Each structure stands twice: as C-alpha cells, then as structure tokens.
C-alpha cells in the first residue's frame, strides 16, 4: 500500500478516534438475501477496500469513470463497463476484477499491487457471491438527477445586466424598483392598491425598522407633517436610531442559530459579545462584505484598530458544541450548514453522505469545505483584548480566572502522564502488540470495529500499528491527543473544570467587563480532508483540498492555501464571479420588509427552492448593493421609499382572483408581530421599556418583568423556553431561514393569563391615571388612534365593570435582600430588597450575577451570598407583635467531588442579627478540608439554634450569610424554624417562601389588557 496516502487516511482515522460505527449493525439490519455474517464481512473487510483503492476513479461521482466501469454497487459491478462484467458471482477465477488485481492483464490499482491478503479477501468475497446489503432506491432516477445537475440555475449565473423597464403608468412607479414591479402588474392587468394612510404606514415602518410600534405622538407628528419629505424624515429617523440594530440584529441571529448556552445547558461564556457585536454592526452599517468577512475570519484579517471585532467569530463558535474529540464531523457539519444555507442559500449539507440528489453539489464539494472547518478549532475560547482594572472586583476575577485556567492545564498534564504509564504496563503492551499484528493490514474502519469488539482504545491501536513500520513509541501520547485516551471520568472532570473556568469568565463579562471576547483560531497543524464515503468517517475516500463550491465557482474553482482557508473562503463567497452573497442578502432584506422575499425559499436557491418572482429586480438590487458599498441601511432605505412598500394591504378582487399569493405585489402583506415586537411594544406602551443597548442577558419569566428588549433574552439551545417556541421564535438548534406564523391557543393563554400581561396592564392603568377620558387615552396609547363610538362603548363597559373585592392575601413576615454587613460589630447597615422573583429565587437582577450584588440570592431553602461583606444576603423576619421566639435551624453547604478535589469554595459565614440586640450568633462553614477523602457529596454544617430571643413588634431578625471574601460556588442551605415560645405560632422559612403577592387587576387594567390582546395591536396592516 502506498505509504503516503495510507498514512493520511490512517491519520484521518486516528484523529477521528473511537466513535462506535454502525457498520455491523446496519449490515445485519438490512441484509436480505445474504447472511448477517457475509454482509458483516463485506462491510468490515471489502467495502473499505473498494472505497480506498477503487472508488477514487471507478465511481459514479466521477464525470467519466475509466472504462465506464463503476464499482459503487453490486449491480454496477456485475454489469461492468466497456470490458464487460467486472465479476461473476461465485466464480472468482472468471472475474475480471481479480485478474486486474493480480496484474494479469489490466493492472489495478495502477499505483501499486495490493498485498496478497487483500487480494485474497476480494477472492473470498466473490466466492461468497458478492454479498452486499440491500439498498433503497435513490429518490430520483439517475437520469433525472443528471438532468437536474446539468440544468443551470438563474441564481448561479453572473449578474444579469438590465435596466428598469418602461411602464405605462409612471405615477405608480416613482422609483426604479417600482418600475420592475409595475411592469409585471401591467402585464398581468392588475392595478396596484392605493397608498396606506400615514398611521398604517408609520406602524409598518416602525415595526420593520425598529421592532417597536409607534407612539400616538409619533403618529400625530407624521400625520401633521406637511413637508414634502415628511416620510423620508421618518425613515431616516428610524434608520439612525439604535433600535434599528436591535431589530435587524435579531434577524441575523436567527440565521446564525444564536444561543447563550449549548450542549448540556453549559453556557457559552461570551456569547453576548457576539450578539452585541451584531447589533452594533447593523447600527454602524458595517458593509455587508466586511460584516461577513469578520464573522468568518476576524482572527486572520486586519481589524483596523478594532480588536473587539474578533467577537464576530461567534458566528462560527456558537454552533454545535458537542465536545468529544470524536464528534468533530458533527461540529463541522453545523458550520458548513450555517455558512452555505445562511450566506449562499445552498443546501450543501445534503452532500455529506452522497452527491446532492437535485443540485450539482457533489459530495466532493462538501468535503472541500470540510477541511476549512476541521482545521479550525471550532470550540471558541476567551480572548483578552483589553484590561479594565478600574472595574470593581476586576482583580479578584482576573486572579480567579487565571487560577481556574491553570487548574485545567495541571489536570490534563497530570492525567496524560498517568495514562501513558497505564499503557506501558506489560499486560497492556502485550495486548496491543498482538492486536496490532493481527490488524496491521486492516483499513482504519475495520480496525475501529476490531477495537470495539475487543475492548481496545481505537486511537491506541492505530498508534501501535503505526509504530510497526516507524518504530516510534506508541505510548508517547502527545498531550493534544488527551481527548482520545481519556476515560469517561476524565471527560466529566475536564468538562467540570472548563465549566468552572468559563463561568468565571462569563460572570466577569456579565458584570460589565469588556476585557474578553469569543475567538477561535486555526489548528496548529493543518491536515488534509477526505471524502467520507456515505458520511462514514472511518471510510475516508479521496483527498479533498479546501476549495469553494463548484456550482458557484465559474470556470476556475477557488482553492485555499493559507491556513484553514477561512479568509479565502470569505473572499470566494463575497467576491466570486457569481454575486450569490449579495443576491441572498438582498433577497432576505426584501423578505423582512415585504413579508415574502423575491425568492421565497430564502435559504435555498437550488432546484428544490422557488423561482424568483422578479429576477431582474433581484439583480438590480444586488448590483445596487455592491455599488452602494454593501450598505444595508441604504438598501433598506431604497426599498422603503418605493411606492410598493407604501401600499395598503387590502387585496383587490382582481388580485385575489389572479394573484392570490400576491407574488406580483399589487398590495402589501398583512403581517403579525413577531414575539420580540409584541413584547417590546407592550413594554414601550406600559412606560417600562429599558432602552439600554447590549450587555448581560435577561430572563423573560421573572416577576416583575425585566424591561429590557427581548433580543437580550437568554437563549438556551437545549431548554428553549416554551414561550419562545409557542410564539415561533427561531429555534436555536440550527440555522433558521424564516420563522413560521402559527396560531395556537397557548399564545392566547400567555396574553390572557401571564404575569407579564397582568403587570403591564396594571402599569398602563397607573400611567394613564385619573383622567376624564380614560378609554380615549387607552386607545391613543396602545393603538395610536381614537376609538369609534362603538368601541368606546364596549371598552368603557369593561373599564367600569364592578367586580367583587378580592380577598386580601395574607402578608408574610419575610423579606429577602442584599445587605451591607459589619461582621465585627454585628450590624446590618443597609437592606436592599431583591427586586426580581424567578419562580425559585429572589435576586437583584433577572439573571445572575447582578452587576452590583453578584450572585446574591435567596431561595426556598437557602441561597448564595454576594461578593463580600458589602453584599451579603439576608432572609429577614419581622416580628408581627411583641414576642419571644425560639430559632431552630441548620446552615450547611454541600460540595460535589470536583468542588472537593479542586477546592472551589472556601465556605460561608452565617450570622443572626437582631435589630434590637445586635449579633446573636455566628457560625462558620469551612471549605472542603485539604487532604480529606473525596466522597460523592461532602457536607459541612452548623446547627444554629437560639433558645429565646425577645423582640418587640417591628423588630427584625436578619439571617445573614456572607462569602468570607470569596464568593465562588458559595450556594448554601439554611432552613429555619421560628417558634413563639409562648404560643402555637410558628414560621418556616421553606414553607413560607413565595413570590410577590398576586394583586387583582383593576377594571381599567383589564380594559388595557383587551387592547393589548387585540388583533389590531398584534398585526401590521
């Protein structure tokens, strides 16, 4: 076997580690006429041979296979090529394939005769009758597939020059864009709808550009503006507002499958740097080509003194983060998908296992891109770009982050040494030496199956086989390959260590640090990729240098030579002969403004996608985009200034009859608010909206609601909030081309019953306050218009409806907050009640850590302290009357095996402080003792009982916990019982724990709610 080629294939197999294959399983599940053993024999011994030695030339993925002979299927082999059948089932002697392998006649493979054992295997296989698993028929007949491949797609041709057509009715087509639309309307004999009224138009424009409905004042201002450029002024006002970036940034985040956490719910520590970068990029109108280039290769291009632009790489890093070394192909697949569907509207992922069935995208193209991403370290890391030592607590975080990073290094180094020793034990070396001898001539695929069957580590087996010829030391495992030899315990430990490190980095960023952003880098050693036959990465086929997609390449295919090739890939995407990137983006922008794009399958311009409704217009826009320096704001401006955009959304009877899908755009589409616009507009009209741009994420489910915009919601890839799914928010698991618009009762339940709507309705009631024209104010505030007489009647009936008074909910004597604590004097200086209730915790921000109070929080059974004495936590009990009480409680902390081994917590201190008599008691919980035996769950506790405490009405008992100056992992449990020593009354901290009392809605608030639920509010006409 030619050494060089085999080494590469072997290395690819080695690098791909110990994933269990389905070869044996698949074979036996599908076998029909052949026995399980025979099919298993084929899969284990023959198929890999064919793949690696024959299919490079004799495959139907080649344009003209030599001698017209393909060996991809049993039928093809039996049929043969120019020289007739390649094999006769059961008759090896007469089979041409065997003669060729024996170099009797044609000499195959041409590069060198196969070893005797391998030829013997082929002979054996033919003698058995060429066992092969049954295969299902391809989705299309071969002839159709070829035709589909040959058919050129308009979208893949170079720019088609055209000028806007002439139209009869020039008044209906004031802009160039309008002429393209008007020409088709005239050809179809359709009249355009009249212009929308100003209120409707401003609503549409505001939602499209800002994601916020306009206020009554804004509508009035526009309606009363008599200047000729009144509309242009509205457009420019909205384009200049930072709300624009939040709106259009969110569209992009759909494409980028943005999430704040990945597999197992583990946080992406610096995801927010990407989200904020995207929002900021739209606000600064970063040219689209630069925008894309940075997202693919910011680590490799000149940043023009903006080191923070590295955060753009979140586009790559915030993807599939399965962390095992062996899961590389799935990580790569996610990147290929997001880049090709997102930027090129090509479904290249289909070609992972076979040639695309419909488009001219051979599997070779998929693997040309594979190398680009396989040679990139896809799991991001924190890159320091600044030091802002001025930020409070910065040095603590710096030190701790460095320590946690060191702990990871140390663990890995310690373990790799131990593992090397394990593999040097005589029993192990003997086992592997024997196995290596036996499997020396096997393919990587077969060797992996062997390893699985014999309980061996596949990577080590590969090293042993490799050492036979090279005389290298197989046990000298490089530290970078730790992932292939580590145990499951190591995997859990390294993950726990990484998580602890990343939580520190993330907490620091969420509290305001701008020191770090997500980054990535190329692999240190660039390795060639190979086609993986049928997507099986133990079945590497021919080598595939990194190159661009064939269908988009024009006559000369761009291939990449610098590092992973990401920078060159970006260049090929943006500046190749086919203006695909601009067509795709321009089409998306059109879709967001009109409700339907010109090519409606926005992420698939292939043969299974739709045809463009106005191809010349699309190219006109693409050309304009390029001439305007790829300015997305200019593009949007030119579109919203058309007459077409400003039309009413009522369809004429003729339009309904002849163009029911409104492809010709005789009118605009009525559209429902997406979830972000809905929630943000409700916040705006309730007077609550916090317009701060960027920063730490929020929770959407706290009481009260966190009033920042919905784009800042914490998005969990694996535990998506049902609320988001219900409202069709993009699924963060993969690239989302377009959101659905479903209607389900759970949406109505949210609007009817959620705490959010109750709270906002109450705010509106309060905001409007006592005024004679409450109902009028309500309509103006929420719907930006005055009510009709009939509406006034209906809504007034609600606003004035009498309801029986609700029973007052009993108040409990507990309060939860952060305190400044003087531990020496035993005094609580300041009590800052926690604002937010999450359902299980009271805390200062909707998501922790709070910028000021850190992790301070109180739960039913305990909580977490803040950084130090200035933000300890307190569960405060107030005496309802003069009383003497007894306190029985246990303060404790539990630490898992990692916290024990790596000393993550130094313990906490509990103090009981009476407002009347000062410090009553203090109890220390220490961190895990160094050197003590590690157990599953280590518990350290203190019994905190006080027999008798005298209090007067209104006195407070503060159960204070502070971090002992080190808040890392300081969650504690403190269950407290307080009993009246002279009576039956008792209070239980856990039983009594609850959120804020629910207040009934006033009738006026209910009237507000009706309008917030209305279709008029939720739809853009």
């Amino acid at each position, binding site marked *: 076997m030619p050494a060089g080629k085999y080494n590469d294939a072997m290395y690819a197999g080695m690098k791909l580690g110990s994933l269990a294959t*389905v070869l044996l*399983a698949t074979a*036996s599940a599908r076998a029909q006429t052949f026995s399980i053993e025979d099919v298993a024999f084929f899969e284990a011994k023959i198929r890999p041979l064919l793949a690696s030695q024959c299919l490079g030339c004799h495959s139907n993925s080649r344009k003209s296979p030599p001698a017209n002979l393909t060996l991809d299927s049993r039928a093809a082999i039996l049929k043969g090529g120019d020289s007739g059948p390649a094999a006769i089932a059961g008759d090896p002697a007469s089979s041409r394939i065997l003669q060729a392998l024996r170099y009797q006649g044609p000499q195959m493979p041409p590069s060198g005769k196969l070893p005797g054992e391998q030829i013997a295997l082929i002979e054996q296989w033919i003698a058995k009758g060429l066992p092969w698993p049954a295969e299902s028929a391809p989705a299309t007949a071969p002839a159709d597939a070829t035709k589909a491949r040959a058919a050129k797609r308009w979208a893949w041709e170079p720019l088609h020059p055209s000028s806007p057509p002439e139209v009869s009715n020039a008044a209906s087509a004031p802009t160039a864009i309008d002429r393209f639309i008007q020409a088709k309307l005239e050809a179809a004999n359709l009249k355009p709808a009249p212009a929308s009224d100003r209120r409707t138009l401003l609503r549409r424009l505001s939602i499209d550009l800002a994601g916020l409905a306009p206020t009554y004042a804004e509508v009035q201002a526009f309606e009363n503006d008599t200047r000729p450029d009144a509309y242009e002024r509205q457009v420019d006002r909205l384009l200049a507002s930072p709300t624009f970036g939040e709106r259009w940034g969110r569209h992009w985040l759909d494409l980028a499958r943005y999430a704040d956490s990945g*597999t*197992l719910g583990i946080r992406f520590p610096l995801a927010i740097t990407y989200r904020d970068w995207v929002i900021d990029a739209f606000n600064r109108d970063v040219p689209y080509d630069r925008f894309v280039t940075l997202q693919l290769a910011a680590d490799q291009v000149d940043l023009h003194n903006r080191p923070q632009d590295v955060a753009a790489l979140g586009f790559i890093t915030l993807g599939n983060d399965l962390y095992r070394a062996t*899961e590389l192909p*799935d990580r790569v697949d996610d990147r290929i998908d997001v880049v090709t569907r997102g930027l090129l509207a090509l*479904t290249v*992922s*289909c070609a992972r296992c076979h040639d695309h069935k419909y*488009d001219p995208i051979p599997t070779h193209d998929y693997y040309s891109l594979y190398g680009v991403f396989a040679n990139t370290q896809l799991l991001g890391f924190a890159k320091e770009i600044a030091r802002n030592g001025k930020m409070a607590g910065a040095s603590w975080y710096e030190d701790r982050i460095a320590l946690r990073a060191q702990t990871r290094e140390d663990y890995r180094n310690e373990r790799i040494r131990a593992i090397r020793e394990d593999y040097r034990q005589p029993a192990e070396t003997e086992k592997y030496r024997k196995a290596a001898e036996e499997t020396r001539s096997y393919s990587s695929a077969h060797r992996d199956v062997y*390893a699985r*069957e*014999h*309980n061996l580590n596949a990577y080590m087996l590969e090293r042993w086989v490799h050492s036979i010829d090279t005389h290298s030391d197989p046990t000298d495992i490089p530290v970078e390959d730790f992932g292939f030899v580590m145990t*499951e*315990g*190591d*995997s859990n*430990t390294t993950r*726990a260590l990484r998580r602890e490190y990343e939580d520190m980095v993330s907490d620091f960023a969420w509290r305001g640090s701008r020191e770090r952003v997500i980054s990535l880098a190329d692999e240190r050693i660039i390795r060639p990729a190979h086609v993986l036959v049928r997507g099986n990465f133990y079945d590497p086929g021919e080598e595939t240098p990194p190159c661009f997609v064939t269908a988009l390449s024009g006559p000369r295919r761009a291939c990449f030579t610098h590092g992973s090739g990401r920078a060159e890939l970006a260049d090929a995407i943006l500046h190749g002969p086919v203006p695909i990137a601009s067509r795709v983006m321009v089409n998306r922008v059109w879709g967001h403004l009109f409700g339907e794009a010109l090519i409606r399958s926005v992420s698939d311009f292939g043969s299974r996608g739709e045809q463009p409704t106005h191809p010349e217009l699309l190219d006109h826009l693409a050309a304009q985009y390029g001439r305007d320096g790829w300015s997305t704001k200019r593009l949007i401006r030119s579109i919203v200034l058309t007459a077409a955009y400003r039309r009413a959304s009522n369809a004429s009877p003729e339009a*309904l009859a002849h163009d*029911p*899908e409104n492809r010709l755009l005789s009118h605009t589409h009525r559209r429902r608010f997406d979830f972000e616009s809905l929630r943000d507009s409700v916040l705006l009209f309730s007077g609550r909206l916090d317009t701060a741009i960027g920063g730490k994420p929020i929770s959407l489910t706290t009481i009260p609601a966190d009033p920042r915009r919905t784009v800042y919601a914490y998005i969990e890839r*694996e*535990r*998506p909030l*049902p609320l988001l*799914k*219900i*409202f069709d928010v993009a*699924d963060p*698991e*993969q690239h989302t081309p377009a959101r659905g618009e*479903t*209607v*389900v*009762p*759970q*949406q*109505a*339940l*949210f*609007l*009817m*019953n959620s705490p959010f709507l109750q709270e906002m309705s109450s705010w509106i009631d309060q905001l409007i306050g006592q005024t004679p024209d409450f109902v009028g104010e309500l309509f103006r505030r929420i719907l930006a218009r005055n009510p009709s007489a009939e*509406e006034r009647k209906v809504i007034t009936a*609600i606003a004035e409806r009498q*309801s029986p008074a609700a029973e007052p909910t009993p108040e409990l004597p507990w309060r939860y907050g952060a305190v400044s604590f003087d531990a020496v004097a035993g005094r609580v200086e300041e009590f800052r009640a926690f604002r937010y209730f999450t359902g299980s915790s009271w805390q200062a921000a909707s998501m922790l850590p709070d910028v000021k109070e850190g992790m301070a929080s109180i739960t039913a059974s305990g909580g977490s302290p803040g950084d130090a004495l200035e933000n300890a936590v307190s569960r405060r009990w107030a005496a309802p009357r003069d009383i003497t009480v007894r306190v029985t409680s246990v303060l404790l902390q539990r630490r898992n095996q990692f916290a024990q081994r790596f000393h993550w917590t130094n313990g906490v201190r509990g103090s009981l402080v009476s407002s009347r008599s000062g410090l009553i008691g203090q109890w220390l919980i220490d961190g895990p003792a160094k050197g003590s035996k590690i157990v*599953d769950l280590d518990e350290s506790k203190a019994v905190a009982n006080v027999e008798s405490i005298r209090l007067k009405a209104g006195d407070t008992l503060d159960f204070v916990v502070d971090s002992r100056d080190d808040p890392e992992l300081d969650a504690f449990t403190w269950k407290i019982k307080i009993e009246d020593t002279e009576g039956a009354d008792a209070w239980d901290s856990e039983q009594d724990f609850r959120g804020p009392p*629910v207040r*009934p*809605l006033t*009738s006026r608030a*209910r009237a507000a709610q*009706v309008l917030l639920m*209305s*279709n008029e509010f939720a*739809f853009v*006409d």
Partner: protein
Amino acid sequence: MINPYSRRRFLEYGTLGLGNLGLAMLLRAGEEIPNPLASKTPHFAPKAKRLIHVFLNGGMSHVDTFDPKPALNRYAGKALPVHLRTERKTGAAFPSPFAFRRFGQCGTEISEIFPKIGECADDLCVIRSMHTDIPNHEPSFLMMNCGSTQQVRPSMGSWLTYGLGSENQNLPGFIVLCPNGLPTKGAVNWRSAFLPGAYQGTHIDSSRKRVEDLVENISNASLTREDQRSELDALRAMNQTHAAAREDDPALHARLQSFELAFRMQMEAQDAFDISKEPDSVRSLYGDTLHGRQMLIARRLSERGVRVVQVWHGAGQPWDSHNDIKGNHSRLAHESDQPVAALLQDLKQRGLLNETLVLFSPEFGRTPVVELADFGSNLNGDAGRDHNSYGFSAWLAGAGVKSGQTYGATDEFGFRAEEDRVHVHDLHATVLQLFGFNHEHLTYRYAGRDFRLTDVSGQVIKGLLS
C-alpha cells in the same frame, strides 16, 4: 370572501406528504379556518389512535428486568469471553441479583422487581433484541425520541401530531409528563424542530399538585372567570369588526378563535389534571405516589383524546444505575411497577387498550459486566452497570400488537442483540405502521428535502404485529 392566499399558507403546514389530504380535513365542523391540530386521517386504516410512551430515562438494565441471562452466573466475577468496548471501564461478569420467573399463559420470564407488570405478561410483546448506536444518554435520548443521534430532527410525538392532529382541540396534542424538572437534554426530547411550533410537546412538571402549577398560564389569579369572559367578549367584538374591514383575513380569524380555544383549554385542563375526580378504587389501583398519580393523569389525558402522552420517570436520568444495581433498580422498579400495570389494566377495563399503543422503553440497556471505579465518573465502583447500546429490552402493548410473546434475543450474556435485531429506527417504523402510516411517506419538506422520522432507515417488524 376569504383570501385564498392566506388559506394556502395554513395548508403549507400540513399537506406535503399526506397524499390525499384536502382542505376539508383541516377544517373543524362549521368553521372555515384551518387548524394545525385538526384531526386528520393517515395513509391507511390505523390500529392505534393514541400513544402512551413510558420512558425509563437513564437506561433500564435489561438483564435485571426483562432478559434473564443465567450464563452470567457461570462467569460470575470472571472475564466474559466476549467483551465489547464500553464507555466507562468495566470488568467481570455480573449476574443479576434478582430472580426471574415465568408469568402468564405465555410464560414470559420477567424479573421479580416488576411483579405487577409481570402479571400483565399476556398483554405484552417484549422485545429483547433492541439496539441503538451510541452508549451515551444524550444521543440515545435523541435517537429514541427523534430518530437521530446528532442532527436536529422532530420528535416522534411531533411527527404523530403533525400526521394525525389531535382528537381534542381543547388540550395540547402532545403532552410530556416529567416530575421535578427536565430530563437530560430537556425540551430537545420533544422538539418540533423544523415542523411548525404547534407540534412541539408541552411539558408538564407532574410533581406539582395544584393544577394551576401544571400547565403554564392555564389560570389567572388576578381576575375571576367572569371578568375574563367579559374581556374575551369585548375582544371578540373588536376583533370581528377589525377583521370584517380586512376581507375577513383567515389569519385574523384564526387568532380570534385561538382565544376561545384557550378559554376552553383552561377548563378542560383543570378537569383533565384533576385526579380527585377519580373514584377511590381507581386511585388506589395506581397508588397514591408521585408515579401513580402521574400515570393516572396520563390515562385521563389519553382518554380525552390527547394524541401522544410521554411519561418520564423523573428529571435527569434516574434509571442510570452505575452503582448499586440492586438497591437502585429495586427502588426504581418499585416506583413504576404498580402505576404501569395499573395503566394497562385500567385501559383494558375501559375498552381503550385496543386503540391505544403503549410503548415502554429506556434509551439503552446496561452492561452484563460490572462498572469499575474512576474519579469523575464513579468514585466507588459499587456493583453497578455501565451503558449498553448493543442490546436492550423494551415492550409494546395494545393496539395492533402481537401480545403474549417475546421477540428477538441477545447473546447468551446479554451484551449484544443477536437474533431478530430491532434498531430504534425499526421500532419507529413499526409504531408509525400501527398508526396507519407508511413511515417512508410521512414526510415534511424542509431545506429542499423531504424529511421523515426514520430518515433513510427503518423496517417495519412484522413479528411485532398481530
């Protein structure tokens, strides 16, 4: 006149892949607006109308429950002649600490820790030759639930509600019961993925006792039912006027109606989840335990037409007994035994078992060899078993199932499925068959391709069908 274009948009969600589905199928009687959960008919006459999937998340050990392996006794404490690679380090053969005995007329051998389920043996089709691909929870949950270990695909429950709609429009069509939190991989297990969000499973934390805590936003403590009704009446009036001025756009009407559906859902959910309405005899049949109550809720939901109910054992992966198989599996089995047996009996008594399919499965099985200690995964290495994707057991009962039998077999040690192997894809194909679908033709067009639950795999296993 209703805008036919808007009507078409609703059809986009349902028609592709369903052959002879017409608009009429999507419409509820007397209304003109299509509803994604409207009841639909499948390709051919179904045997099953509803699915209850009891999921033993964490990996129930087959050699300790449904697959007796006396050969392990011969090798106790010694290396097995066959030792496939396991995720964690494993050692010597580890016979089951439990005794097996024969149950029912069919004489199926079941372990002593499932005595009540054992009594139902004649209703069960026990598959002993299940196998899956990866000995790890997350990919195997995804395989069992979504038909793919890594890729983003809709769950089986979503496919079924997409294909069939639901029989009761006042409740979600696909409900997932899991007590005390979320299982490993969370909502991904019941995801709709690229299918419309209407087909996503609705998770209920069944440990909550109060109905208000069970379904999100199902009730409102801030206003009375009457006040709410008055609001909805006012809303209806406003929405109708609004729609009338806009060609009665179906999208507007659909949203208008969704409030009425939601109003009804409040009452229906209150009723469905309220087990206090059951007679004492039924409640004691299931047992007054967390799992008993949860299973009774499952029966009530299914009986009320919820198309798919999935019942998980608990948050995380409780059946994952890496240590102390004896203690842990005894306890876990005890928690499920009575409720599951009660479900079967109860369905039977009500005449529902012959139109309900009950699937009882883990995501994989466990190794016949003992797991060894290793910091980070198993501190103590205490008489437990590691994950086993090579072979495991599951059973089917109810509509269209050939009951009173075992199907397939593992090797003599229970390491790998050997005879009449059933991959999870095959199980899916068979389940869809029972619901009246050719699994290759229940598809959805996304990203230019027709996707299906079984992707490119799966064979209907005729031996499981009556």
